[in-house]
């Protein structure tokens, strides 16, 4: 199996599985507890049907949308995800350059493996930073200052990882950052020698936004669950979020909003966007799927800030459904992470291009030529 055999999400996943040591593959692939929410994030889209309109003359389709004051050529972007150089040695560099090529946004995590300064020097298209609120206020201030200096466009505060989700696959495979060889994982690393060679020869593994302040994740191995539970500040509240927003001064979003009440409160504290997200099903299992919750939230705050639907998206038609309900844009992590693992920048580009083609085809078949043509008349819930 090769990159050119990858026609969809499952194909990229399959190829990533072939290339990655199993603890790393399962870190991407896995979710919390019984993965009920993870599965629902995608299957929720099947409870609603698209109803096309015909004979609309659709030779030219414009997929552009504007979020956080930036015009993107695509109505989806690449969500911030941690530790990307574990998946491919180019990590965030590959993802950033691919996003730039399609003029869409991409997110850099506080747990990124390439620095915001380097990303800023490589990519001049819109960029988002994903902030984690640490107990160490010195770390928080330093990160905020660096992201500001690097002229990122959007600051997204993660609000759904106040403690680590129960990712049982990681418990079983012994996934840690940095990767640690254990008796049980030895075999799976030995089976993927190319990954090992790249990991050891393509530059040291680093967490450039954190390692001057904390050793966990770089010189001290930790699981991601433990990192969240021990390093992040569980007392974080709305006041802290508001303070961060004013400290940042620009477009500010809360990532991980699921209730209408919280969405309204996000408006009150001056957010310009929210990501309706359950962290890809990786935190609270049994929690509601973003798509299931989208309509209520759009109805309440859709005219006051940008509502992003994040999670479970595998297809262009999933995005069409979310946009029809009123999301301004969609985003996802696994959406491009398997492709990153499968083939670096070329993989991400292939994945993004496929979603673009699926969206364009879907728009034509729906009888729509621009994103604003999509609305709830296009949908029927079963």
């Amino acid at each position: 199996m090769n990159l050119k055999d990858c026609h969809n999400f499952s194909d990229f996943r399959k190829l990533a599985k072939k290339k990655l040591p199993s603890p790393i593959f399962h870190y991407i692939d896995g979710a919390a507890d019984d993965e009920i929410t993870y599965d629902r994030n995608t299957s929720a889209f099947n409870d609603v049907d698209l109803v096309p309109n015909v004979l609309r003359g659709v030779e030219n389709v414009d997929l552009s949308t504007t979020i956080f004051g930036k015009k993107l050529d695509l109505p989806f972007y690449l969500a911030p995800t941690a530790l990307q150089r574990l998946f491919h040695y180019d990590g965030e560099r590959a993802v950033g350059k691919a996003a730039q090529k399609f003029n869409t946004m991409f997110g850099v995590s506080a747990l990124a493996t390439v620095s915001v300064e380097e990303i800023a020097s490589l990519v001049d298209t819109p960029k988002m930073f994903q902030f984690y609120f640490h107990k160490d206020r010195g770390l928080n201030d330093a990160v905020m200052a660096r992201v500001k200096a690097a002229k990122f466009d959007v600051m997204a505060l993660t609000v759904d990882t106040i403690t680590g989700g129960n990712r049982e696959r990681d418990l079983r495979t012994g996934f840690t950052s940095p990767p640690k060889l254990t008796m049980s994982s030895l075999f799976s690393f030995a089976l993927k020698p190319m990954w090992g060679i790249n990991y050891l020869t393509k530059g040291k593994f680093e967490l450039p936004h954190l390692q001057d302040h904390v050793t966990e994740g770089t010189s001290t191995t930790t699981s991601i669950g433990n990192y969240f539970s021990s390093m992040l500040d569980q007392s974080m509240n709305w006041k802290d979020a508001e303070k961060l927003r004013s400290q940042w001064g620009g477009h500010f979003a809360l990532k991980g909003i699921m209730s209408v009440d919280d969405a309204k409160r996000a408006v009150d504290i001056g957010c310009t966007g929210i990501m309706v997200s359950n962290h890809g099903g990786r935190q609270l299992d049994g929690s509601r799927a973003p798509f299931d919750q989208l309509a209520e939230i759009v109805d309440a705050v859709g005219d006051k800030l940008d509502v992003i639907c994040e999670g479970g998206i595998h297809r262009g038609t999933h995005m069409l459904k979310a946009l029809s309900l009123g999301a301004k844009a969609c985003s996802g992590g696994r959406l491009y992470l398997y492709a990153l693992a499968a083939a670096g920048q070329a993989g991400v580009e292939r994945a993004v291009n496929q979603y673009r083609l699926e969206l364009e085809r879907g728009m034509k078949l729906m009888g729509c030529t621009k994103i604003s043509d999509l609305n709830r008349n296009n949908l029927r819930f079963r």
Partner: protein
Amino acid sequence: MNLKDCYNFNDFRRLAKKKLPAPIFHYIDGGSDDEITLNRNTNAFNDCDLVPNILASVGEPDLSTTIFGRKIDMPLFLSPTAMQSLYTPEGDRASARAAEKYGTMYSMSTMASFSIEEIADISNGPKLFQLYVHKDQSITDDLIDRCRAANFDGLCLTVDTLVAGNRERDLRTGFTTPPKLTLESLLSFAMRPEWVFKYLTNKKFELANIKNKTDKGTNIAKSVMDYINEQYDPAMNWEDAEYCIKRWNGPFALKGVMSVEDAKRAIDIGCTAIMISNHGGRQLDGSRSPFDQVKAISDAVGDKLEIILDGGVRRGTHVLKALAAGAKACSFGKMFLFSLGAGGQQGVERALQNMHDEIRRNMILMGCKSASELNNSKIIYKK
């Protein structure tokens, strides 16, 4: 396994799978993307129950209905489908003859492997032609004029195929027209020597209706998806449809209408029928199934034009449910194509006979004397 062992959709499908090279079987069997809509098209019928009336002195029920100005003996006919000679050398001739024998309608695709004239020569039965608006207007005009000259009864304009669906099975099997041997597909062709022998010893594969207008699909190995994307006009709009109606000046349907709004507009431009269809789940995956949508459309326009439900029909009871929800007739593609691949004309006859028997038996069990007695009172939706 043999034709006489085929009692239902799955049997015909299984036999076709045995007889056809894999790329060809999967071209019929597959849908777009994740095939969610393909599956829903059939599953939708299960969310609705039939409610029989007893002691209705049914006697021999009348299965006939009238569409496109022609009376047909059963409320189910053959959907237009492309390139039937890939499934059996006789292709459209086999299906047209079978349809005539059962007094139902045969439909011809623009991309048929026999010409309008060839089929008119062998069949006096009801005939529908499925038109695609080509970028080259003269192709479209030529097709309409020839259908009139050949006494076709109706025309349907396909409106859900402005761009090809993402049929991933075809990407994987490398399906093209004419069939091309690739290393991957070689084995599946080699394992079906009977198909290969027939294919090579019969009339050369061609898209008979358009062969003089374009070399696409005949001289060059093209995937169907490439053909659609190159030849069909994505700018097609309501004026283009109206133009076709005027030029044809007879019973006319839009095939692929799914919204109530479009169904109303179809009346305004002079359609006499619509085919509620998502192209057998082969175009926009995640789109609504015909049966899920038929009642809403019928409530809005059922008294003003003929509603044909196309997609997901595998059982006589499916037809009954569709009629009860407001359709005037149903059409089916996959099932008759599998029967065509399984046994040529005889296969299609068997499929039609089976469906005829199922419809008849179930009309009796429902206590209905005629198709017109099937209405909303005979069904209950589960949710």
